């Protein structure tokens, strides 16, 4: 298959399928993330960049038999390696006997949050998550500097709504109706993450998806009026600052870094407050980085359209 568009669409299906598989393997939070990130944002970014690089792959004449050989040998070695692994679904595998029982048994007393994934993510392993948020932040900065554009010219600004979307009136009306619900749902996912699947990462991505929907249907200029570049940059940094700030606040109040017990008189209440703030920081950073990424790619395509 040489049409990259079709390939990206099949990759989107693959993401949906793998998310269903995660759901079947009891990883609801992971399924949530994979559905919104892998199937949603990843496909969107791929499509936007296909618009820039063209959608046809050049045909190749030779057969890469050497590559096939390497792959088969590596695969055979890996399968040989699996013979020593614990069986699928067995409860006495080494993974289940290290720290996991502690998380499962004492999370409810120590943290007081029903969703154990959230409590591990934001509290037990909060330091890891801070690192991940910084990685997302850095990637946002990287894309910003790679796809830097010069000042916007005047004639582009006149073009408010994309031409092909002006025709789709029904689509635009329905999308306008749905937009508040999507943003509301994102907030629900954000603050319900303690009790069900969800949390800052997923909520940020869903919020960004709502904004991206608006951008696609009503044009970049309209979306830029609400989400100005300066505000987005500020928000990207603010999220990381909130996360790290909670950690520093814990230190100032006499605990360790990101040790939420000291935030309130009751340790469980402190944990609740800490997780809420930290997830908020994660959500803000992820949402603004995703929106920025999409804006950067779309902006390039608009520029291409007018210069070429």
């Amino acid at each position, binding site marked *: 298959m040489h049409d990259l568009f079709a390939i990206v669409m099949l990759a989107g299906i*693959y993401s949906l399928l*793998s998310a269903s598989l995660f759901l079947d393997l009891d990883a609801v939070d*992971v399924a949530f993330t994979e559905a919104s*990130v892998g199937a949603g944002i990843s496909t969107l970014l791929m499509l936007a*960049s296909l618009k*820039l690089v063209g959608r046809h792959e050049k045909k190749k004449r030779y057969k890469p038999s050497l590559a096939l050989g390497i792959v088969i040998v590596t695969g055979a070695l890996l399968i040989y390696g699996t013979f020593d692994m614990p069986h699928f679904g067995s409860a006495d595998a080494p*993974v289940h006997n290290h720290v996991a029982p502690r998380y499962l048994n004492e999370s409810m007393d120590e943290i007081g949050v029903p969703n*154990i994934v959230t409590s*591990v993510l934001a509290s037990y392993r909060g330091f890891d998550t801070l690192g991940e948020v910084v990685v*997302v932040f850095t990637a946002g900065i990287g894309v910003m500097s790679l796809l830097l554009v010069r000042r916007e010219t005047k004639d582009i600004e006149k073009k408010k709504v994309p031409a092909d979307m002006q025709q789709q009136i029904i689509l635009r009306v329905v999308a306008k109706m749905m937009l508040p619900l999507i943003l509301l749902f994102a907030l629900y996912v954000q603050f319900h993450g303690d009790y069900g699947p969800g949390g800052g990462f997923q909520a940020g991505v869903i919020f960004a998806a709502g904004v991206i929907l608006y951008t696609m249907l009503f044009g970049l200029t309209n979306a830029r009026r609400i989400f100005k570049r300066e505000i987005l940059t500020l928000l990207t940094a603010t999220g990381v600052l909130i996360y790290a700030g909670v950690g520093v606040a814990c230190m100032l109040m006499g605990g360790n870094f990101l040790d939420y017990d000291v935030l309130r008189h009751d340790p469980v209440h402190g944990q609740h407050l800490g997780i809420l703030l930290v997830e908020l920081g994660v959500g803000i950073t992820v949402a603004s980085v995703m929106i920025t990424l999409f804006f950067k790619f779309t902006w390039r395509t608009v520029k291409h359209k007018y210069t070429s």
Partner: protein
Amino acid sequence: MNILGLYNYWIVVALMMIGFYIVIAHENLIKKLIGLSIFQTAVFFLYISVGKITGGTAPIYDERWQLYSNPLPHVLILTAIVVGIATTALGLALVVRIQEAYGSIEEDEIHAQDGSDELECQLEAYGPRQKYLGAKRK
């Protein structure tokens, strides 16, 4: 010992090798990125399937259930997915810049261009600067 109980690892290995093959055998950079993400998903499957316990349920506390799957791999993979999209976006941005600089996203064409006009590139890199210095001296 029942070997068939290991089928989850075989699926992971198969997916991983498909991703690996796409990365090394295809010249198109977008296809390479997709292969990379398939490889990535294979690793996610490995972690998540290790965390599954037969008869367990999702690790969200509820009175009706006693046995939960292991939450630790879920946490690791959740963050890994978000970091994965961040790196994919960075890769796509690089591909876009490569397309602008070389006019192609096929790896062999890029290499061919690099080989043929290496000298020109050097001239281009040094030429204007020398001119500028020369002008300054005058």
